[in-house]
């Protein structure tokens, strides 16, 4: 009955994703740039012979770009619209049970968060911002739609 949440940190905030949207959490090895692609696309990577489109969570929030990190990137794998995406986050923490249904946030979240947030949700007596990974994938360009 209780929804599972994946707790991660992005842009210095602890956030939650609905675990149902998430296929896996992986460490990405290697990143192929995709010049000319939308700004929040960090590049391409491969996972078990599937091509992943790597989304820079920070850039999608229009908070700048994640710096070049050497070696492994921790990423959340989300299938969306027939393609598989890897969301780059600062850190993935844990999967926890939500204490209740998400509720709307009645305070200003800031432009970037406003676009991707579903609401806030309580888990393990802490309050998290619940993020829709699909909106994070769609990026800033989708705002107009």
């Amino acid at each position, binding site marked *: 009955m209780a929804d599972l949440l994946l707790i991660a940190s992005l842009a210095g905030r602890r956030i939650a994703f609905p675990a149902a949207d998430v296929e896996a959490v992986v460490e990405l090895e*290697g990143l192929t740039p995709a010049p*000319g692609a939308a700004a929040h696309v960090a590049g391409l990577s491969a996972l*078990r*012979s599937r091509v992943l489109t790597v989304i820079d969570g920070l850039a999608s929030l229009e908070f700048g770009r994640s710096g070049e990190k050497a070696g492994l990137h921790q990423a959340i794998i989300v299938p969306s619209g027939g393609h598989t995406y890897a969301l780059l986050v600062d850190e993935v923490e844990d999967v926890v049970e939500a204490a209740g249904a998400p509720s709307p946030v009645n305070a200003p979240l800031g432009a970037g968060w406003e676009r991707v947030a579903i609401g806030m949700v309580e888990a393990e007596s802490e309050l998290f911002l619940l993020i829709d990974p699909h909106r994070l994938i769609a990026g800033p360009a989708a705002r107009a739609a």
Partner: protein
Amino acid sequence: MDELINDFIAETRDMLQALAGAIVAWEAAPQDRARLDEIFRFVHTVKGNCGFFELPRLERLSHAAEGALADVRAGTRTADTRLVNAVLAVIDRIGELVLALESGESLASEDDEQLIAALAREEAAPAAQPEAAAVPEAEARKSVRSIRLSVDLLDRMMNGVSDAVLARNELARRLRDAPRDVAVEAAFERVSACIAEIRDGITRTRMQRIDSLFAGLPRMVRDLSAELGKQVRLQADGGDVELDREMIEMIRDPLTHIVRNSIDHGIESPDERLAAGKPKAGILKVSARQAGNQILIEVADDGRGIDGEALVRNARAAGLISAEQAEKLTPSQRTALVFAPGLSTAGEVTAISGRGVGMDVVRANIERIGGVVDVDSKASQGVRLCIRVPLTLTIIPALTVSAGGQVFAIPRSAIDEILRIGGGAVRFDRVGEAEVAMVRGRRMPAIGLESLLGVEAALPREEQKIILLKPAGGDVYALIVDSVHDHEELVVKPAAPAVMAAGLYAGTTLADDGRPILLLDPSGMAKQAGIRFDEGEIDRALLAQADESEAQDRISTLLLFRMLDGTRRAVPVTAVERIEDVAVESIAFSAGRLRVALGGRILPLAGCEAAPGTEKLRVLRLTDGESEIAYGFAEVIDIRSFVLDLQPAAAPGEVAGAFLVDGAQVELLDPYWLFAAHADGAADEGAPPVCALPVGDPWIDNMLRPLIESLGYRIARAGDCADVVIALEGDEIGAETGEVVRLRSQPEAGAGGDASIYRYDRAGLIGALSRARGRADG
């Protein structure tokens, strides 16, 4: 037993499918022994199997058909329409029965007798005929067995194998770092080879030749046209294009629908066609080809075309467009209304393609797989429908290149040529911010891949490579890359929308080492780089180019080859249609000269006096646009571009002159003379008018001379008295010559308002010639 029955069902179904084309071909040519044998083998095999499985109905049917066909094979009976129809009916029934057997349903049996009776001879019941020459069982069983698999399962296998490849690569890296052990390495090599083989197999399982889509068409066209009382000839082409299975299934229905529409609405009845001055039988052409990053499937008929007016009327009536909009529609927009939902030009509802439903569904289905469908219609000339589906999900041959340290793939089909920059064959000019490459006298826009992608070039210009790309529907441009790696066959998948938004890519793929590679889209790159391919501009550019400089005019691309006697000769590649090997048996001295049978035609054969002693003769098929001649030779040496310094031959003949290649003499063929001397119907009676041309100018020799000669002039030899003289700007003309026609190289007339004619003004030139000749005669 069940398993055996299933095998039998699958095998029979396969054979039926393979047979569909043969049946129609046999009907068209009942004398075709090969087809007859094929059909006979089918019923024979079915009969044999049925006996084994105790399927009496199938056995009776196939036995009856076999008996009738055996009579035909034995020559005691001719295959008339009645017999063909009866055999087809029996084969159809066999198909139905097999289907029923598979699904466990029962099928009414009463009219089996009718079918069998229809096979009987009109005058007498078929005498029990001893089985004609026993067909070897192995041959009859040659059809491939098949099973059905879900594409999901194939996908899973594919992913599994790809993972195995990655694991192998990882292992290879580890092995390189570890101390050498020959035994381990040998074992690894074996595993490696196995994985490669499995991967290849699995990849192929997803691919299917588009043949399988076309195989059902002959039968469908036959049945439909018979039903509608029309005559339709189907021409299918390009069946060897490979497409993803899934894609083929997605295209099947739309294609069927389009073909039905063409036969039902497009192609007229035989009477109408005769009245319109067309041959009785309509032609339906279905072709497939790979064009750049797309597979193109074209369905063209020569029927009445789409009635644009009627479409607009209907669209107005249906309230789809306003009167104002209707006014503004261009002809092509009108035709495109055929895709609007609920519209049709069909005057009445027919059983074949119904009314109003169809083309909108066709378009929706094609668009769902990322394709495009275009329609082009000419009143009373026919309709051409073009389906373009993306090559995503298809395997395409590609070239991997790198720019700014990153690897990309380019579809091979769009690549014209790969050149080194340092080689001197290429020159770059900077015009404003744009770069223009000059390759063998040809100018084209150049794009640096690295600047297009906004990355740093890894190499200086001189060390880079250029790739001449010819995107579908565009003109050639030069793409500059750092280096060219390898030819690979890649399984291309669609890229995410956020990546496709760049407009540069056609999809993604995985390299052998598991890294993703982006597949570049040649037309997309041209568009992003701002290259315009306005047709008018291209024409002007070409014309300007043709006039640009003397030196450019003198460059000819020649095919160098060795004659049977070892002589080296050359011919302009523009005159060569293709090169083919012909069996010497097809060469004969007939109707007064040496001729060769080639692809269903008989062509005059030049270049050798008699059929050579070898098994095969290689021939050049030369064309002047209308007639063709074959020219026998031994081997191709090279294709090269030359600045010709031709020493003209002493007298006109097969050889126009000689020039030097790498220090050795090569004779240049005179295609004009060859056609005049050899082409059928070229011999002209009576004394033709004589025209004198400037000597030694390749433009004159290659372009003007054939034109003048096609007008019935003989080209003056030295000492001839010419009726008409053609001169270029600045040429001095002796006083004793005939009427003079002067050509200029600029489209605009000179300031003096002289009477010269622009050299590409064909109509003006022809007019001037006939006027000049009139004056000369008078």
